[in-house]
């Protein structure tokens, strides 16, 4: 038995001919953030601290769909979600619909540790984040040029889009899939 760590930065229809300028920074971010997690485990930090630390780093990277790199709603806004869970106790915390909290995963942990509840959303979650003194920023902080372009293309195709996957039909849309060529990375 020994420590172990795994992390992900999203799944989808990632083309094997992905341009290097899109691939390399994401690979580099994964390696850097993995090293941070490994160092924390080697320093005997508790797993709950390690997963929060690693996810904060991923949220702060614009290359992944969370925090700074979050994709946009149909209104061009960001609504972020996060969840954290401790295997020993099954204590957990979750948050949805936050728009100004820099690290939603830290808010989820605060909900787990400082409320009698598991899940807060939207205005109540925002208010609790401020009450706890978590860092907040203007909503524009989370909106990247790349995600503005992704939303534009998804709206033109009238589709929703999973991480790294070209826009796909929602269940009530019956028309055939659009051809390749509009996929953009998240």
């Amino acid at each position, binding site marked *: 038995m020994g420590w*172990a760590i795994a992390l992900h930065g999203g799944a989808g229809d990632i083309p094997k001919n992905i341009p290097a300028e899109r691939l390399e920074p994401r690979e580099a971010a994964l390696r850097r953030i993995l090293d941070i997690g490994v160092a924390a485990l080697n320093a005997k930090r508790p797993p709950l601290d390690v997963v929060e630390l690693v996810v904060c780093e991923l949220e702060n990277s614009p290359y992944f769909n969370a925090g700074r790199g979050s994709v946009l*709603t149909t209104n061009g806004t960001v609504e972020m979600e996060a969840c954290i869970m401790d295997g020993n106790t099954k204590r957990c915390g979750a948050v949805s619909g936050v728009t100004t909290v820099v690290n939603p995963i830290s808010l989820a942990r605060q909900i787990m540790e400082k409320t009698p509840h598991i899940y807060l959303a939207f205005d109540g979650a925002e208010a609790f984040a401020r009450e706890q003194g978590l860092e907040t920023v203007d909503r524009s902080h989370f909106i990247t040029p790349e995600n503005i372009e992704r939303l534009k293309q998804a709206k033109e195709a009238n589709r*929703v889009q999973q991480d790294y996957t070209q826009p796909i039909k929602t269940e009530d849309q019956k028309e055939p899939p659009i051809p390749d060529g509009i996929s953009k990375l998240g």
Partner: protein
Amino acid sequence: TVGCVAVDSFGNLAAATSTGGLVNKMVGRIGDTPIIGAGTYANKFCAISATGRGEAIIRETVARDVAAVMEYKGLGLKEAADYIVHEVAPKGTTGLIAVSPKGEVAMPFNTTGMFRACATEDGFTEVAIWHSE
């Protein structure tokens, strides 16, 4: 969607997941990430973080099901994770990362790729995107 699962040398497990959701999602849409047992779960058998198509992951309670088949069917971590991702979740919708109290790691996905990385105390490290790298 981003996530991390970790286990220390005493077998303590934790999971965390964070996301912006789907591009062009409706305002107010809730995905799988914050729904305990769908996109994130941890107990004494494993810690799981999922990524992909949220609605599919919610329907299949992907994260909780991995733990459940370990507990009730007696499968190992890799077998349980592979079963849920490849036999239960709709193709093209789901990836997950998982660790067990023994320090095992699984990272199956049924999409074309998944940005992922892992390390174990014995020195193994992997950073990968597609299958069979």
